[in-house]
């Protein structure tokens, strides 16, 4: 009764606050639109797949004046290899990345990390670029990007920029992408032959946001671990590599004691981890120690 009066007088109640909606069909069109909105001092937000933005809109944690939906731009949906580099169009769905034989064979770490993102229904609609640009601290791609030294390609009014990962993520949900720029592509090197890799995360339910996670790559040379890379996510505002833990392993013979020591070094090297409803800082530290150990074991078993 009350609801029907409400609908009659003010229309159907909506979860998100009002916004203007645009659906440009090309990157150029999107960039000029974003530039114009910026010049007019209109707070615009890009909608890629919307799997993180939609809840924020519905809960009114985000109240942009304008939404620029990239869903109609068909040129940003691809996965291809060129000269040892894998190029992924920003609007490629995570499901397409998960189903990509190229990714599975040439960049298995990125492939497996993709399978850990959300539930299947989320991966069907969510995009690879959306996840990078959203920069959630618990996003798998953050650590993978750090581990692999990925690059992000953005296009703005002044043309294209290629941003290395260590300049891309600035803080919690914040990247180097300017208001009038669009992320168009992410690039990852093909995984060199013989590389061992590991990926582990902990969440309450499979597919939920990770409480903590680790990505590792390494190589074996004459029985020793070399080129060891250890990256963590879900614990601090942005994913990071942990040099202290890497150095514990580099040049040494793999073994349980060494990996436990690396786990301890990783936990100690963390900035004060996040405490939230899912876990305390102390628990996250302890998870990192365990996951680093597991990832190293996994990576050594895969290394040729």
């Amino acid at each position, binding site marked *: 009764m009350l609801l029907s009066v409400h609908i009659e007088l003010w*229309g*159907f109640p*909506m*979860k*998100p*606050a*009002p*916004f*203007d*909606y645009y*659906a440009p069909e090309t990157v150029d069109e999107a960039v000029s639109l974003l530039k114009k909105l910026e010049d007019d001092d209109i707070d615009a937000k890009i*909608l890629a797949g*919307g*799997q993180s933005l*939609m*809840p924020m*809109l*519905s*809960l009114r944690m985000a109240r942009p004046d304008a*939404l620029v*939906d990239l*869903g109609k731009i068909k040129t940003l949906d691809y996965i291809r290899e060129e000269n040892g580099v894998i190029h992924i169009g920003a609007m490629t769905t995570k*499901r397409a990345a998960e189903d990509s034989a190229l990714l599975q064979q040439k960049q298995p770490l990125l492939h497996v990390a993709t399978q850990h993102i*959300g*539930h*299947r*229904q*989320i991966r*069907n*609609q969510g995009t690879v670029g959306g996840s990078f640009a959203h920069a959630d601290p618990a996003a798998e791609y953050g650590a993978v990007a750090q581990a692999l030294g990925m690059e992000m390609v953005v296009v703005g009014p002044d043309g294209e920029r290629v941003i290395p990962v260590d300049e891309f993520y600035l803080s919690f949900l914040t990247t180097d992408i300017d208001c009038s720029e669009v992320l168009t592509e992410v690039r990852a090197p093909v995984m060199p032959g013989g590389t061992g890799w590991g990926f582990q995360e902990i969440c309450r*339910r*499979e*597919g939920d946001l990770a409480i903590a996670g680790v990505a590792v790559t390494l190589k074996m040379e004459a029985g020793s671990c070399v080129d060891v890379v250890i990256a963590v996510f879900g614990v601090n505002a942005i994913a990071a590599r942990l040099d202290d833990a890497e150095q514990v392993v580099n040049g040494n013979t793999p073994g349980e004691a060494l990996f436990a020591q690396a786990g301890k070094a990783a936990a100690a090297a963390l900035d004060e981890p996040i405490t939230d409803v899912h876990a305390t800082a102390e628990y996250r530290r302890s998870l990192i120690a365990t996951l680093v150990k597991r990832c190293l074991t996994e990576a050594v078993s895969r290394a040729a």
Partner: protein
Amino acid sequence: MTVLQQVELTVNGVSYEREVDPRMTLVDFLRHELRLTGTHVGCEHGVCGACTIIKDGQAVRSCLMLAAQADGTSLQTVEGLRNAESGELHPIQQAFIEEHGLQCGFCTPGFLMSTLELLGDNPNPTDQEIKDALDGNLCRCTGYQAIIQSVRLAAAKTQSGKLAGAHGSA
């Protein structure tokens, strides 16, 4: 004043053309504009999976999309499962009834649609594959065991249906 957005889409084989407020979610559009109330609204932020529908052959959460984003797509909702001509229930629906894959039934439309995608991709899934495909759907009556049994039976029914079809008796 918000500019209304023109949306053209197909739902369960029927074409619709509507003007929508851009901030209207797809699930609200289905329920309130098209009066297809079989798709349920649960958490409305992508956790529970009650609103799962099929978009262009893949399961998506209709609360995590705007109606405007669905322009040009082909959707299937739980109403589209039943055979339109014979009125017969879909083998997945039949299996959920036979194995008691529901208690209160609120989450069921979502489970049915996630199962539809799973069996389309993988007609003979293992228990682990069933669990992986359904991990985005919550049942608060805690009926997961019966749901997994239902999906197993649905797979068997779909398989035997196909065999029957091959012999011309479907």
